[in-house]
């Protein structure tokens, strides 16, 4: 009898000792503690978005930085204060370029590991969350993981079109200090699509954005439906990976993989939801800065909230000759102001001409400009636009219905103030027009480089020339420590 008591006491003592030695940090929070509460899951998900909006990722570099430079969207003065000239020359050995692309790679995978930790804990601590919220968080985390991998793939692996069996990027689905084996480009794309599809199914029944009453508006509206929910976590669905953002991402990925039917279906789902109305041109051309919609906010299917980076963005685009800008002539060429683009509101509203004294005249981007007092909308970095859905729809329908395809394209142009419809005689012409259109629409949003790459198309230079398509340009080298410490 007494033997047993001793045994019990010693077992109790030992186990409580172990617990006693399990010390939890206070100013940080341990993984175990974070995922003990519902709020912890929300914070973890919010954390992924915040992580993605740091300046190494969509807060700056991936939205306005080197992908735009690679697409020849900026002009650099001889001083080259921002050290982008070598990047524009595709010198991939330039230390500034290496630092930026390596940071992007690290950042993407760091955000991915946050997704994986969250997903892992969603499985382990299922009971903490109500079912709806569990589905919402899981769907977003899965889709984000796919979205981030897709951008890593678009930057660091050959395009599907040019080299689908070449090595892609590691598709990481677990948290570990072991490296994940890298699959081929098409295998990686399959994984991305699978995750997106799963996410779409999970989130479909629970995402408030699918409510008929949910129509994208402005936060300054009197009854802003997007901020109607009592819970902050369920507000502003478009700042997060919502149902339509997943559709949009799927459309984007499927098109990249040349799965036109699926791409079209998903693009149409976004278009036909009628959740994202076209910005009326009055708001676009509004002179009062407090009422002006600079970014075409209502058309954003998914955007990164970067309110705290206003100063940083301002420094990038509106700090004179040391900022990022496009030389006046090049800008006019890009927007075809001499011909079809004469009426393009985008050129008129997004650019400000600054005449240089001893340097050239330059166009400074106003898309992200903030009024110091009030703004009609938040400062965001666009991730998926409604217009992109129309472009995808156009590209995917041309083979079956060329007229409809042209109509999709013309709808966007019309909403940008270009009243004269385009007539398109063949597929090449459509692609050419689409590229032109996307260059104008996505200026300063970090997307156009991927389009050149997807189409394996030569890149247009500012002076009207072109740089031939090549994997030497399109495939960024992996970071050294990935090659050194990984086992590909």
């Amino acid at each position: 009898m007494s033997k047993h008591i001793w045994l019990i006491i010693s077992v109790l003592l030992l186990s409580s000792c172990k617990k006693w030695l399990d010390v939890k940090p206070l100013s940080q929070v341990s993984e175990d503690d974070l995922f003990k509460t519902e709020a912890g899951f929300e914070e973890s998900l919010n954390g992924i978005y915040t992580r993605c909006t740091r300046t190494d990722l969509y807060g700056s570099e991936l939205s306005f930085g080197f992908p735009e430079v690679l697409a020849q969207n900026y002009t650099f003065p001889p001083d080259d204060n921002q050290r982008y000239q070598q990047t524009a020359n595709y010198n991939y050995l330039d230390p500034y370029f290496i630092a930026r692309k390596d940071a992007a790679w690290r950042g993407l995978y760091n955000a991915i590991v946050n997704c994986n930790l969250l997903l892992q804990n969603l499985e382990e601590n299922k009971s903490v969350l109500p079912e709806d919220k569990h589905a919402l968080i899981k769907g977003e985390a899965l889709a984000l993981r796919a979205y981030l991998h897709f951008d890593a793939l678009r930057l660091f692996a050959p395009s599907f079109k040019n080299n689908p069996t070449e090595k892609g990027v590691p598709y990481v689905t677990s948290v570990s200090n072991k490296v994940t084996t890298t699959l081929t480009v098409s295998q990686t794309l399959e994984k991305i699509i699978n995750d997106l599809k799963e996410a779409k199914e999970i989130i479909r029944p629970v995402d408030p954005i699918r409510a008929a009453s949910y129509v994208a508006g402005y936060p300054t509206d009197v009854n802003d439906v997007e901020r109607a929910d009592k819970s902050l976590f369920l507000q502003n669905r478009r700042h997060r990976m919502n149902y339509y953002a997943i559709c949009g991402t799927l459309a984007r990925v499927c098109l990249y993989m040349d799965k036109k039917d699926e791409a079209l279906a998903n693009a149409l789902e976004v278009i036909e939801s009628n959740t994202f109305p076209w910005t009326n041109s009055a708001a676009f051309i509004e002179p009062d800065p407090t009422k002006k919609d600079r970014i075409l906010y209502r058309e954003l299917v998914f955007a990164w909230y970067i309110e705290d980076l206003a100063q940083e963005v301002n420094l990038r685009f509106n700090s004179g000759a040391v900022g990022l800008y496009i030389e006046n002539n090049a800008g006019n060429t890009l927007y075809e102001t001499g011909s079809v683009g004469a009426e393009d509101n985008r050129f008129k509203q997004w650019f400000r001409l600054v005449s240089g004294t001893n340097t050239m005249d330059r166009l400074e981007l106003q898309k992200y400009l903030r009024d110091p007092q009030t703004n009609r909308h938040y400062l965001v970095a666009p991730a998926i636009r409604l217009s992109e859905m129309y472009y995808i729809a156009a590209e995917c329908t041309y083979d079956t219905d060329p007229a409809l395809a042209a109509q999709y394209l013309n709808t966007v142009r019309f909403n940008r103030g270009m009243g004269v419809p385009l007539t398109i005689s063949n597929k090449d012409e459509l692609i050419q027009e689409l590229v032109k259109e996307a260059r104008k629409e996505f200026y300063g949003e970090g997307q156009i480089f991927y389009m050149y790459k997807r189409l394996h198309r030569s890149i247009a230079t500012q002076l009207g020339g072109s740089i031939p398509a090549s994997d030497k340009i399109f495939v960024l080298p992996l970071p050294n420590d990935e090659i050194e410490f990984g086992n590909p």
Partner: protein
Amino acid sequence: MIFTILCQAARRMAKSKTILVMKLTAILLLAGFLQVSAAGFTQTISLSKQNVSLPKVFREIKKQTGYVFFYNLRMLDKAHPVTINVKNGTLKEVLEQCFADQPVTYRIINKTIVVTERPAPPPVAPPVTTDTVPSTIEVRGKVLDDATGLAVSGANIVVKGSNTGVTSGADGSFTLQVKPGAVLVISFVGYDNKEVTVTPATTTLTVRLALKANKEPMVEVVVTGYQQIRKESFTGNAVTVSGEELKKVNPQNILQAIQAFDPSFQVAQNNLFGSNPNQLPRVNVRGATSLPSGTGEILTRHNLAGNVNLPTFILDGYEVSLEKVYDLDPNRIESVTILKDAAATTVYGSRAANGVMVITTKAPQEGKLQVTYNYDLNITGPDLTDYHVLNAAEKLEYEWLAGLYEPVQQLSRDDQEERYYAKKRNVVAGVNTYWLSQPLRTTFGQKHSMFIEGGSPIVRYGIDLRYHTMPGVMKGSGRDRYSLGTVLSYAPTKKFLFRNVLSVTQVEGTESPYGSFLNYVRMNPYYPKTDSAGRIIQRVDDWTIDTRQSGADQYRTETVLNPLYEGTLNSFNRTKYLEVIESFSAEWNISRSLRLRSLLSLTKRKYNTDVFQSPFSNEFYDYPADRMDERGSYYFRNADESAFDGNITLTYNRQLGDHFVNLAAGANIRTYSIDSKSLNAIGFSNDRFTNIGFANRFPEGSSPQGDYALERLFGSFLSVNYSMKNKYLADLSVRMDGSSKFGTENKTAPFWALGVGWNLHYEPFLENTAISQLKLRASTGQTGDVSFPPYMAQTTYQYYTSNWYSTGVGAVVNNYGNQALQWQKTDNYDVGLDLGLFRDRIYISSRYYYKLTHGLLADIMLPPSTGFGSYKENLGDMENTGIELNLKYVAVRNRNLVVSVFANMARNQNKILKISNALKAYNDKADQEQVSNDNLKGTPLLRFNEGQSLNTIYAVRSLGIDPENGKEIFLKRDGTRTYEWDVKDIVPVGDNTPTAYGYFGTNVSWKGFLLNLIFYTRFGGEEYNQTLVDRVENADPRYNVDSRVLSDRWKQPGDKALYKNIADLGTSFASDRFVQKDNVLELQSVYLSYDFAKKVYSKLAMKNLRLSFTMNDIWRWSSMRIERGIQYPFARSFTFSIQTSF
């Protein structure tokens, strides 16, 4: 009010005194009775035995009565067996029966029955012859205390070489039958033994026992913090120094003082902070066992991360911080023990790898109230002998040679020359300001330290008070300490002892408002420090500088501001802490050999840091108009530190024949937490309103900071010390530790040690030879180290508190938590030899050790696709090999004069065996920084390479300066020569490890005088002379420089110069041209004291009186000329002390 109550109480007590005494007697009698019956002893005996031997009967009687028999077995050889049958007989009756017709008889002394040979039987038929001596004689004697003359009862009187003996009675008397010529050994606890030879003429003795001389009580035992082990039988490596000895070396800083007794305890000289009293020293024992685990920060030798190799400090049984030891009053220290090898430190398990320093404080002595008082007057003065700067005329000449007055920007040659001659005018007019001395002073620090003690054997008390100011040599800096402590001990019976110690300490450290000393060294001597009206001017000069960059950045105006101006402002930088330590211990002496001891201690410490920078400070001088409201800054930090230590130890020591066993088993727990909060504020209108409340706002983008850390540890250990005949020794200890810092997979860790030893001097073949002591010992074991930040083993999240996402605050993962993270393990091997010659007049002890640390905590780089850059892993090995040598020689020893000399030397060689990939990547980063960072170009950076030591100096090999053109010629890796410095040519060019370092000195005592001299030396190592780079070659000619600029730099073709062209303002890179031999000899301490004779101090109603004088860091010689004390100069110090008690 209280007084009257006390008076009344006293009066009432006086009346009832007699009644009280009676009551007490009754209680005591009752208690005595109870005790006897409780023990089961009776005064009557029942015995029924047939033909049994006497010893058997004795045993039975002892069992029934508790009386002990004292006899010599040989005496009973002739005794015959007894048959006895008694019921309820008295002791006397029984004994009479037993001893009837026996050749022996008995006496009862206290509770001991002493059996003696029966006095010669009545002469029945005596064959007496006159020339035979009687076989025995009776000796009657008395044992007295030599000092007081009081009787000593219970003293043992034994005939030497036999077991025969008696104990002295209550009046100190004894009677013993001995053979003539026998030697009696009289002994009693606490007294020196005394031997008396008995002759027939001296049958009546008076033996006076002298109290054991209290000379060096500490040498006898080793205090491990958990138990005390006789040094003679200990195989571990420990150095014990008494507090008195420490004070003789350095009365201000015990950490500095310990070094002189054990050089393997190293306090690094801090060249950057010199003698700043607020700078905690860096300490390590027997070399480094961990790598600096940086966060990728590039390291120079100056910013070597923190105190990673700090030993563990134990004060009276509980762990304390380095700062506590630094601020401890040396007068309170009884002894300090440094435990070094595995056999000595294993009881500290995971905290033991860097050695353990055990400090015990003085316990109050019983007796009448006694006051011990100590006064120190400490005078310190700056030591500027290492600074050699140019004087005004030389400086101006150098500026001219360096081309500072060439036309620049809009300044034409005429403008420049005008400026030059304006300065020349100053020089000619005799302006030659010695800026170095301006912020400095000679200081007087005082210390009053008092200890009041006394009490009865049951209750003893002690109160200590201290007032200690320690101003620094830079004006306004200093560290003041005040403390109050009480000790109360209570021993209700001999079996129990309770002790409570409560101490409160307040320490206030103030930094000098004059700023960094560097600023004064740089000032040009031709600048006057005041204007003609005697006011201190802020703006002294302007320089227009051509930065040789293109565009608008090409020209820059630099304003020279007067650093003395800072001293006129109300800026301050204060850190103070209030510390309360409560510790309670209880001891239970279960039996003579078994003892249970437990200790609880609680430490609370509250830190406050306030740093105010006046808005008028030079720091804000360049602020543009729109930032005027940002001038002035305030930093505030508040930290709460608490620690709880609890331990329980069971010790057993017993001599069983030839075997002696000392066993300790115990367990301890410790928790430590620190909670700190800090914030910055800016914008003050003037410096009269210095409260943080007057601040305008927080700096842009800053938010309050908070940090909290919690550590927990528990462990249990068993330690056995065994010796046989004092010759063959063995130690064995094991410990199991659990720490909150380990990964969840490894919460507990085992540690062990084994030591063996042999006292050869007890072997017969060494007896009566010149060798008075010869001891061999060896030990091995494994200890650990967990001195890394908590939570590293866990995956943690951090909040983006300053930027919320639109849908709420976000948390992101911080690190990859390695669940398998373990402690660092150090394998220790230690062999030693102690040799004493001629009754230890010459004493040599030497050690060799080898420490292999494996599982060094290191950053492991991960492929970024894992989402993490690196994680912590136990990877990396390092070894430390060392020799320690200790010599002592008593040259003269007679009544009045004792002269002894000593020397101790140590050597530690450190070698990196294996490093992680992150450290390899770090080396590449160091290469990169070396090229791109202007501040690091001329500094050898720390690099990690397998096979090299942590002290290796890395630079490019140089062939010197080309006499042709004043350029430096480098040697490339392939052996070719070049003028181009290339980071790829960096190789190990030197090692900072000295061949040996240590102390030597002498000790002379003559009558009441005592003189102590201690020198420090270090030789055989190399050091990179940063002064040559920063202040000779890369020196900015617009500021004052080392005088070698003018004398030793190349000026014209053909100059065989050590340093490059004087007009070359380019940067010199790290090259081995600056590596020099680092040989040092220092006179560290001179101590002189005089103890007054009894007739002097007793006239003053004192119990003793000592005056002493100590000088520290007085003289120094070095093989290299390097500026020491960059931000704060070094100081020399002189201390006068008076010590007395009454």
